[in-house]
């Protein structure tokens, strides 16, 4: 799931400074689950924006709407009317959602209300952690399902850095050492021999260094 965080209210107010009628558009998928941009957050942020604008003596109308998925044109159609009747869209979806709106509604200003943070999971109630860096060439099968690229601060591919203390990362002691986790996990599933295999330097070509990536499935194209 994509995890995001709300920008603060003064920043949001400054973002929509030029507009009087703004559509605050939520997304019912990832950002709903990470409690950043679902229906409830839309309601809270809309109230906060209206109150902050009123305090500044600024006229601002905020319409609230949440659609199932912002990053999908089919679902975006449900917001077409509301987008049309407002001066601008303040999206509380992830970065993909914001850009999907910008592409679909070319003449309408669209702004991001969230800071999209990472691909992660809900660790416990109210705590999300990053688990995947979307590097484009998954190596999880070699490391017992624990990603050294995302979870090791130094992205070590062939064993720990020797800086870890007990089972803590030396870069941030709040974090467990990814290599400790990898070792424990491989031992548990009886695949410690995988560690004897020397891994070649990772090829980052599939990662983000070459600009935005694209996947084409000819078998599904029309």
């Amino acid at each position: 799931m994509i995890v995001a965080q709300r920008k603060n209210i003064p920043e949001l107010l400054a973002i929509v400074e030029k507009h009087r009628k703004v559509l605050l558009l939520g997304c019912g998928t990832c950002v709903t689950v990470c409690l950043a941009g679902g229906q409830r957050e839309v309601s809270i942020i809309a109230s906060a924006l209206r109150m902050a604008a009123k305090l500044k003596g600024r006229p601002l109308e905020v319409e609230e709407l949440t659609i199932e998925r912002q990053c999908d044109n089919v679902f975006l159609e449900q917001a077409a009317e509301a987008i049309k009747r407002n001066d601008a869209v303040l999206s509380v979806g992830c970065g993909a959602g914001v850009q999907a709106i910008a592409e679909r509604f070319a003449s309408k200003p669209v702004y991001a209300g969230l800071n999209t943070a990472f691909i992660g999971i809900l660790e416990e109630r109210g705590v999300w952690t990053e688990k995947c860096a979307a590097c484009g060439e998954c190596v999880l099968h070699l490391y017992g399902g624990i990603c050294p690229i995302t979870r090791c601060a130094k992205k070590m591919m062939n064993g720990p850095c020797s800086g870890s203390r007990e089972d803590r990362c030396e870069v941030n002691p709040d974090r467990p050492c990814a290599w400790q986790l990898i070792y424990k996990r491989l031992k548990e599933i009886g695949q410690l021999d995988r560690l004897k295999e020397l891994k070649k330097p990772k090829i980052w070509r599939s990662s983000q260094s070459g600009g935005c990536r694209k996947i084409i499935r000819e078998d599904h194209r029309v």
Partner: protein
Amino acid sequence: MKTEVFEPRIVAFCCHYCAYSSADLAGVMRIQYPPNVRIIRTPCTGRLETEYFMKALENGADGVLVAGCLEGGCHFVEGNLCAKRRVNYTRDLLEEIGIEKERLRMVNISAAMARPLADTITDMVETIRKLGPSPMKPNGKLKQESCT
């Protein structure tokens, strides 16, 4: 010239199992508290969401009081602790917006604490009276300031 005295309007979300009962008890005991509160009974303060506090304040409530059970005494185990976290979050949000966070307060009251409830309400009313009318009201602070 006759000067109007500001009478705060406070929305009080009271838990059915404690604060609401203590308000009832206050009535039975003939304990008076200021009539500035509008009590809303909730099954548990854990039922309350940030939205509720925001909507109350946005619609012109001068203050919002959340009255839940004593810590450790929640009928639903930890509903009041959830409410406490949400109230704290909302107070931070109010600061971001530029509204005094004192307009939202959470208190813990048991069903037998009629007198403390009355004192809490009196104190809340006085706090809000000092802060003045909510700036969200049509005749709130903004308008007053622009007149002076």
